[in-house]
């Protein structure tokens, strides 16, 4: 009996049932895959961590260095520190690494270093998470570069630096727990000890030290870091805590998983709306039957069961199918993880965790149905039998009289006023159109913003045509002076400004000293947008990035004072402004030139420049790149792209995906909605035809109403994506250092192209779905 009723109902509403089933299945597939992926990520990261044994604290340092001091410190803090190891990196510029047909790795923003495997911890592993053991003449290349340059095992890379030249055959991928992610700006190539010694002897690269500590189980990294800073040990680079590496490793997969969960929630909302619509339509159709059943004395519970049964069956079937299919779908999502984190993803956690998705979806749908079905409680048997009362019994003031219409034909006005009259019904469609527009426009806005020169304001730099970055080399100071001289005499350059970043000590909220990178220079040449206050203009002034000024940073406001120390001398600086910056972990600072450079810890030099009008930017960039081979010359767009890694590319994919998903959802729901609306209005349509309206005229009424809802939905959707989207993105980005994102709007895309795509697709659907059938005899409907 139970199955027979479900079957009959299914046959009666084939298309609607299939659509709801499809949405719920999709939601389960996506949610289960995402949870599956998160489970894989947790297991993958932990097994990767077991093989790689990453350091709990890593200090980066370049310049003078004495291992004895470090050993003494280690002994002193034995109750915290279990092991210490110093990895000596030989930094090679990307332009000195050759591969393929005359290609080099120049232009990368990554610092490349050649290392040998550590002895005790922080191991670099292969794709099987086995500790790498590289033979002489071979090299293990970081996954990032293997991907970036399409390298394969067996390919050759050649390092040419000064007198040194050696070809290495790639024997492995290097999976590096600490420096895997594109977000960490260094990458380690692993070579054999003999090759390494030869390279060292030939002084092929700049030396940099990774002073690494593995702590005891009870060791406190914060305490060790403070002690290390206070002991004045070598640390002119950043000090990194171990947990940051796990975050970097999991970030991109985590973001993908969260986006998928978000989409699956969206699908569930849509499925729920469909169910609501189906219920309202079928209950309206069946209202007399409900009345008869009630009059016969059948209980409310049993009546509801008739409606609920179907959706219990659908949810259960969708849950099972979705759960099983998620095992196939998850493979499409985890290719990045299999490469970067764990090739073997065979844990059992995922089977149990991803069961949450179908169970949750099942209960949500059933609960939701029960909620909607409460409407049946309110219908009395008499009311149900006199169903007209249900529809228009309210004594409200009459709105939208026909004669009030001044602009449209009466026929079209009938369609438009219907939306106002039955807004509760059209509300569903409006929400769908708003949501669909939102998921098209938001990624477009984000993509355009990231791709625009304006984005520089979120990277702590002013708008400029070009920038030249000089990293640490022996000749850095000479190069920097020579470059400035050349720029001074280059008539193609309209203006330029040099900036020097060096590391200082800064007194934190607890009164101890932390490292802080401060950039000095004249910030009036390429003005930066400040969230609050202004740029440092005179002596004793500093401005802080948002992350530094935040409560969990230095906790400073404009006008507060900051104490910095360089070379034993302390200076108190006043905070003049706070700006947004997502580079360098969001923690940067800018001070007036009078602060002076901390010569012991210069990190990098930058020259920003604007070209005179009509000068070819590309040509100028090539010139300076050739003249200063160790420099990185980028226009702002390139700089943004390299800094944000492949986020911009991914955003491009999201834009396309968003458009496709939005159009599919909008078209499906519109078709479904109109089908139900037309069947609900069957008798009203027959009345209109009986008094002499053509089926075309009636179709036009529905088209007018629905197109108006579409237009309204698109306008509200675009506004929501523009304003609400900005707030959402700012919230998401605030952890990265930018709390006030202002979208760059490309008007023809946000207000014309994207809405037009949606308009055409949905408009066609409305056009096709609004056709009123003319075959049937009117008397059949009128007298039924």
């Amino acid at each position, binding site marked *: 009996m139970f199955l027979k009723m479900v079957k009959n109902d299914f046959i009666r509403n084939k298309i609607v049932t299939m659509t709801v089933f499809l949405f719920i299945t999709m939601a389960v597939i996506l949610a289960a895959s995402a949870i599956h992926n998160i489970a894989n990520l947790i297991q993958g990261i932990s097994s990767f961590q077991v093989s790689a044994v990453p350091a709990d604290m890593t200090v980066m340092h370049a310049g003078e260095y004495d291992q004895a001091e470090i050993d003494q410190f280690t002994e002193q803090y034995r109750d915290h520190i279990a092991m210490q190891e110093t990895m000596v990196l030989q930094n090679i510029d990307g332009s000195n690494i050759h591969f393929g047909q005359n290609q080099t790795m120049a232009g990368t923003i990554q610092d490349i270093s050649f290392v040998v495997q550590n002895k005790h911890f922080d191991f670099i592993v292969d794709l099987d998470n086995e500790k790498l053991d590289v033979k002489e003449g071979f090299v293990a290349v970081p996954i990032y570069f293997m991907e970036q340059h399409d390298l394969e095992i067996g390919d050759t890379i050649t390092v040419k630096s000064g007198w040194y030249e050696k070809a290495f055959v790639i024997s492995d991928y290097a999976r590096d727990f600490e420096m895997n992610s594109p977000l960490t700006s260094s990458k380690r190539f692993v070579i054999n000890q003999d090759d390494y010694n030869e390279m060292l002897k030939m002084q092929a690269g700049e030396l940099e030290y990774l002073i690494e500590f593995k702590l005891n189980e009870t060791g406190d990294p914060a305490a060790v870091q403070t002690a290390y800073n206070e002991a004045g040990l070598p640390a002119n680079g950043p000090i990194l805590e171990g947990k940051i590496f796990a975050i970097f490793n999991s970030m991109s997969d985590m973001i993908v998983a969260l986006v998928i969960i978000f989409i699956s929630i969206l699908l569930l909302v849509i499925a729920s709306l469909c169910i609501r619509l189906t219920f309202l339509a079928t209950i309206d159709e069946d209202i007399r039957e409900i009345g008869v059943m009630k009059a016969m004395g059948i209980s409310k519970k049993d009546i509801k069961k008739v409606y609920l049964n179907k959706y219990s069956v659908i949810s259960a079937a969708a849950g099972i199918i979705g759960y099983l299919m998620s095992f196939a779908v998850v493979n499409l999502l985890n290719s990045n993880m299999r490469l970067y984190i764990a090739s073997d993803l065979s844990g059992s956690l995922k089977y149990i965790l991803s069961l949450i998705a179908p169970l949750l979806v099942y209960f949500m749908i059933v609960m939701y149905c029960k909620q909607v079905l409460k409407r049946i409680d309110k219908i009395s048997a008499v009311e149900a039998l006199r169903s*007209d009362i249900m529809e228009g019994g309210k004594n409200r003031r009459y709105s939208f009289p*026909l004669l009030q219409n001044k602009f449209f034909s*009466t026929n079209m006005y009938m369609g438009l006023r219907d939306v106002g009259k039955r807004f509760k019904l059209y509300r569903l469609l409006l929400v769908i159109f708003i949501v669909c527009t939102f998921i098209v426009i938001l990624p477009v806005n984000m993509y355009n913003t990231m791709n625009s020169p304006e984005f520089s304001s979120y990277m702590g730099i002013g708008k400029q045509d070009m920038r030249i970055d000089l990293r640490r080399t022996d000749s850095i100071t000479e190069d920097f002076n020579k470059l400035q001289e050349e720029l001074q005499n280059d008539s193609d350059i309209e203006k330029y400004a040099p900036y020097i970043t060096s590391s200082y000590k800064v007194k934190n909220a607890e009164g101890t000293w932390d490292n802080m990178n401060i950039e000095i220079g004249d910030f009036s040449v390429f003005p930066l947008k400040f969230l609050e206050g202004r740029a440092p203009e005179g002596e004793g002034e500093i401005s802080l990035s948002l992350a530094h000024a935040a409560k969990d940073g230095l906790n400073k406001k404009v006008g507060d004072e900051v104490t910095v120390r360089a070379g034993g001398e302390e200076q108190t600086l006043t905070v003049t402004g706070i700006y947004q910056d997502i580079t360098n972990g969001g923690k940067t600072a800018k001070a007036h030139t009078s602060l002076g450079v901390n010569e012991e810890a210069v990190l990098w030099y930058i020259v920003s420049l604007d070209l005179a009008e009509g000068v070819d930017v590309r040509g100028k960039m090539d010139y300076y790149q050739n003249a200063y081979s160790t420099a990185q010359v980028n226009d702002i767009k390139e700089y943004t792209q390299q800094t944000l890694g492949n986020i911009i590319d991914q955003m491009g994919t999201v834009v396309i995906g968003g458009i496709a998903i939005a159009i599919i959802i909008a078209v499906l729901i519109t078709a479904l909605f109109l089908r139900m609306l037309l069947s609900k209005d069957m008798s009203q349509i027959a*009345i209109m035809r009986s008094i*002499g309206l*053509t089926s075309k005229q009636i179709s036009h009424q529905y088209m007018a109403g629905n197109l108006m809802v579409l237009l309204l939905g698109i306008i509200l959707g675009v506004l929501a994506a523009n304003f609400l989207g900005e707030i959402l993105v700012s919230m998401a980005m605030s952890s990265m250092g930018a709390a006030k994102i202002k979208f760059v709007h490309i008007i023809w895309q946000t207000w014309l192209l994207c809405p037009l795509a949606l308009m055409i697709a949905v408009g066609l659907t409305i056009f096709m779905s609004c056709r009123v059938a003319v075959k049937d*005899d009117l*008397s059949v409907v*009128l007298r039924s």
Partner: protein
Amino acid sequence: MTNIIEAKSMTKKVALGKENELPILRDVNLEVKEGEFVSVMGPSGSGKSTLLYNISGMDRMTSGSVKFKGREIGSLKEEELAKVRLKTMGFIFQDINLLKNLSLIDNIMFPALVPTDADKHAVNQRAKKLMKMTGIEKLANHNITQGSGGQLQRVGICRALINDPDILFGDEPTGALDSQSTEEIMSILAQINKNGTTVMLVTHDVKVAAKTERILFMVDGDIVSQKKIGKFDAQQGDRKEREESIMKWLMENGF
């Protein structure tokens, strides 16, 4: 007087399952003259309403011919047929069939406002005049839930008349009304007919039929008999005689 309707060998069949057909109208022949007041009687299922729906073109007949003012209804396309219904026919139903979301006056005006060149002011004036004529002028801005059956049926009549049709069809227009309302509605229809509009209605009620001038009697999908009783004149006071003669005639025909 010329014929406004001429039906020849009109048949209507409906499908019963995949292979069987049930004939509802069988070879019906009929003529209605302009300005005539005709009623159709017969037992339930005899095809009275179907006859009306097929003549007016709301249903498509299976075979035969119906000419409305000399134009063959069967060969008209949907749009032409709709235009004919809009401009020259009015239809009143037993279930009244008003549009739910329109006020009473908007329901009346709607058919006249559909043409894009409609003079809204004139339409409004005419609607008010019709409402006054039918005694519902005070209900103009009411919802359809706020009127009694009799009042709503008058709205239905006003709507049918708004485009000044040549013929008014009524499918048991008083079927759901009490005797008082039936009286009132019938005098309105008589008045309309007196003004020159042809009226053709289906009824079970002898009292209603007695107000018309010709009665058709249908059995099993065909008109088997007809009776002319001439125009009814309330002043003459022959109402009872008319009703009795109809009763007698019906009994002779086995009703």
